[in-house]
């Protein structure tokens, strides 16, 4: 049986979602996406120059990809809603990653404003993917408000620090009946594999690829890591025990 990521009823092959920012040269994005074999790409609407279509980041993203516009730069729900509506209006589709940042130092999300924006945008028919702290009570409210997934942070955006919120993400995976997509903080392919091993549905990352010396090679590394992690999850990881199970037991003489 084929294994798909399913968001809002749409079946998606790749469980790796990448971004399009921070690259030294945007023309490399198409090669990165090819190496990553990803189907969903997030784009910061703030970087799209509506008045200048020929000099536009969107031209580097192949048409067949699902565009996940994000609301980077929004400081509150009103700005996020405004950006999302504009995104749909200019033909960027009805997917949106809500990113509301009230803190420019650590770029941590504002869960309350994110919930407000989710309630409005989901009602308007958007496929809403909110970027949040891994808070299970909030995640339930988001899903009940129509979010198509929850996207908890592993650690602050761009920090490459890995899954610092691991135990809280594990609770989300256990409790939330919707895709849990780790977004932010994944610095190494092993972090991505780890997120997939614990049952996350997908990972979203950008900095680790964009700021690598060889983004195309790094994209492939993440693709393989995500696949490996997913396979390990599906196969069922062996139990982890802190008690040694020696191959030559000290009490073995009793059975002789």
């Amino acid at each position, binding site marked *: 049986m084929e294994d798909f990521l399913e968001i809002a009823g749409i079946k998606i092959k790749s469980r790796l979602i990448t971004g399009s*920012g*921070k*690259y*030294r*040269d*945007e023309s490399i994005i198409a090669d990165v996406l090819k190496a990553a074999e990803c189907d969903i790409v997030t784009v910061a*609407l*703030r*970087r*799209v*120059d*509506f*008045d*200048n279509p020929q*000099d536009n980041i969107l031209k580097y993203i192949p048409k067949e990809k699902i565009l996940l516009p994000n609301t980077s*730069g*929004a*400081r*509150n729900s*009103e*700005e996020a809603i*405004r*950006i999302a509506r*504009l995104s749909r209006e200019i033909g960027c589709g009805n997917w949106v990653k809500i990113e509301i*940042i*009230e*803190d*420019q*130092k*650590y*770029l941590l999300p504002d869960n309350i404003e994110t919930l407000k924006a989710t309630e409005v945008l989901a009602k308007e028919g958007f496929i809403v993917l909110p970027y949040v702290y891994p808070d299970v009570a909030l995640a339930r409210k988001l899903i009940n408000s129509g979010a198509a997934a929850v996207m908890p942070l592993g650690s602050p955006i*761009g*920090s*490459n620090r890995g899954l610092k919120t691991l135990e809280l993400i594990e609770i989300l995976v256990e409790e939330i009946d919707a895709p849990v997509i780790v977004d932010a903080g994944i610095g190494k392919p092993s972090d991505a594999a780890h997120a997939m091993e614990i049952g996350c549905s997908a990972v979203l990352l950008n*900095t680790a690829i*964009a*700021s690598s010396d060889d983004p195309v090679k790094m994209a492939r590394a993440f693709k393989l890591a995500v696949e490996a992690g997913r396979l390990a999850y599906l196969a069922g990881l062996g139990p982890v025990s802190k008690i040694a199970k020696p191959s030559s037991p000290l009490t073995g003489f009793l059975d002789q």
Partner: protein
Amino acid sequence: MSFYDVIQKYKNFDFQKYLNSVTPQKIENILNKDKISQLDFLALLSPASDLYLEQMAQKAHIITKKNFGNVIFIFTPLYISDYCDNSCPYCSFARQHRITRNHLSLDKIKEEAEAIAQTGMRHILVLTGESRTVATVDYLTKAVSLLSGIFSFVAIEVYPMLEEEYSEMVKCGAEGLTIYQEVYNEKRYHELHRGGPKENYLFRLDAPQRGAKAQMRSVTVGCLLGLYEATSEVFFAALHAEYLQKSFPSLEISLAFPRLRPMVRNFPAYCEVSDREYVKFIVATRIFLPRCGITVSTREKKELRNSLARLGVTRMSAGVSTAVGGHKISFSSTPQFEIADTRTLEQMKNDLIAMGLQPVLHDWNTKYFATNFNK
């Protein structure tokens, strides 16, 4: 609460004694930390760190890449009026200097703006001399309204305003505020700013805070190097940025510490800041404030600017004229200071791309995105 309270904490602090006490071992310990304190930052500005400049540069490069990727935000200044009520002896626009003055009408501003926009520039910084009676609040709101229809992001660098005046600017489409304290040392500030509204040290010091309260999206602060002892000036400028970052978490903060440039009258600098020292200030600031924007203007030479683009600088101007009407109209106007990097936007873009950096020409769009923009 004001940043003045932070300055007061260091009132009796003996900077020289502390700077002389810093050992190489202390610098090594600081460079091994993820987060550094205010005094750690000051230690990085001390002579003891001279031997560690390369290590500091490497660390600054990694921090910048992690936080900002490979991008440089590009903007250009637009001077619309050079009348000034102040008498800063280091500035060509000072009221005592007998220069031909110019003040652009809205039609002329439009002409200049369109000439700039044709080059592909999308971020504009509107500048004036500091005369409330000539470049009135009403004039500036109209100018900002006009420019926000042409550019995607408008910032202002004008005289310090009241919070409600900044709110008016924001409503008309200004989302960035640049205001330099010039000199943080209060005594030296008063020596240099005798006569004119700029005499009021505190009103200027609190201007960025008033702008932030008025919902400006980004604020740039800084000092002008060469007016006073550079180490403590850079220290306080960075602490000012840190204070604003803590007080207004959603604000995008940037810092700049331009060096004095030749102007209409020769002004004797208090001290010279060498390239080596300047680079040290930039990299130490990046280590202290990983998420803070750092601007380097065309007061610096092309070669140095290119090198700094990898060491912590995230914002650069291009296609610059520091004279009123300098883009299209070409009055016989006097530049505020001589620029050292005369590259056009196109040349700047090409140079950055060749260095493996992405020039960002569009990073926000006020007219589409901002909820507090009344247009």
